């Protein structure tokens, strides 16, 4: 039911139990602060299983991105849509090792196309005002700043991606 996406270097697939250790490592890293981290292992487990559960509740969700070469988990990208989100979001995060290699760009581009095939063709990304790296990535992806909103009591910028034809 959950489609697998492939790019030159990556395979994006449904969250799996075997991703747990790598995901714990990501959420130990302070860089995870923009994605709700740092998290203890028990909360990482909830994140992992809820990422999978969202696919069944919403019909869309996050893909976990692995290097095709080594199968190492390098991040996640896809649709994040908890009940209190104003609309489904194109969300993403990559591990420290994957940074600076265009991996996030590759993963998000694939996830955005995958989302379009599920009928979500013009998604926003919600980005913290002080997350300059993510804003730069959104710009490279062709997204543009739309407005500022409050998300869970914190300011967030809405970056709107261009319409993607499935």
């Amino acid at each position, binding site marked *: 039911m959950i489609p697998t996406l492939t790019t030159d270097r990556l395979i994006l697939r449904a969250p799996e139990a075997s991703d747990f250790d790598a995901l714990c490592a990501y959420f130990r890293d302070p860089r995870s602060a923009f994605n709700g981290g740092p998290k203890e292992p028990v909360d990482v487990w909830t994140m992992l299983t809820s990422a*999978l559960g969202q696919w069944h509740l919403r019909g869309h969700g996050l893909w976990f991105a692995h290097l095709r070469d080594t199968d190492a988990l390098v991040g996640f990208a896809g649709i994040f849509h908890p009940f209190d989100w104003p609309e489904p979001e194109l969300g993403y995060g990559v591990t420290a090792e994957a940074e600076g290699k265009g991996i996030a760009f590759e993963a998000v581009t694939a996830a955005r196309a995958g989302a379009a095939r599920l009928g979500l063709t013009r998604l926003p990304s919600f980005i913290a005002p002080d997350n300059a790296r993510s804003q730069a990535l959104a710009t490279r992806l062709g997204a543009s700043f739309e407005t500022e909103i409050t998300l869970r009591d914190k300011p967030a910028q809405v970056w709107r991606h261009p319409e993607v034809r499935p």
Partner: protein
Amino acid sequence: MGHRDIPVLTTKRLILRAPEPQDYPDFKATFASYRSRFMGGPLNAYETWMLYAAEIGHWEIRGFGMWMIHLAETDETVGMAGGWCPAKWPEREIAWIIWPNKAGKGYALEATDAVRRYYYDEQGWETAVSYIDPKNLDSIRLAERLGCKKDHDAPSIDGNDAVYRHPAPDALRGSQTAHGIAMEIAHYQDPLFKPKGWAID
């Protein structure tokens, strides 16, 4: 949409089904309340959503999980029951929660008895535990009605909970405990129920 692979269990009064999007408000109400204090709550709105979605992801990853308990007659939900084993859990648990305004009608007993039989008979479980806060007297009482015994040697989750071990499938099958559970459930289902041979005076 729910989940197509989660089996449906039925008892006389209950239907146990996969958690579905439309059931979320009932779950949210209970997990926002003091009622959930022995289940990791109360949770804020965001944590509640994560846990709800995680209920389904747990099924996907473990091949077992928690069902939403519906009344067969009205389809309304009254709680959840099933198997639970997140990361770092010492072993597989049978867990339950009943919405606060639905307690006292024997739904937890009827549902938990059904899920335990499912895991024993259909999934081949040889044992199961329930991790219970020592202050959660209602749940301890239910565990005891289900034939559980406190297991002092088994590891607990974090030292703040007691481990209640369910009777093994062979010890349960055809036992006095099993008959007692069946009779108690039958009494909840029909308060006028009297087994054959019941004393007249």
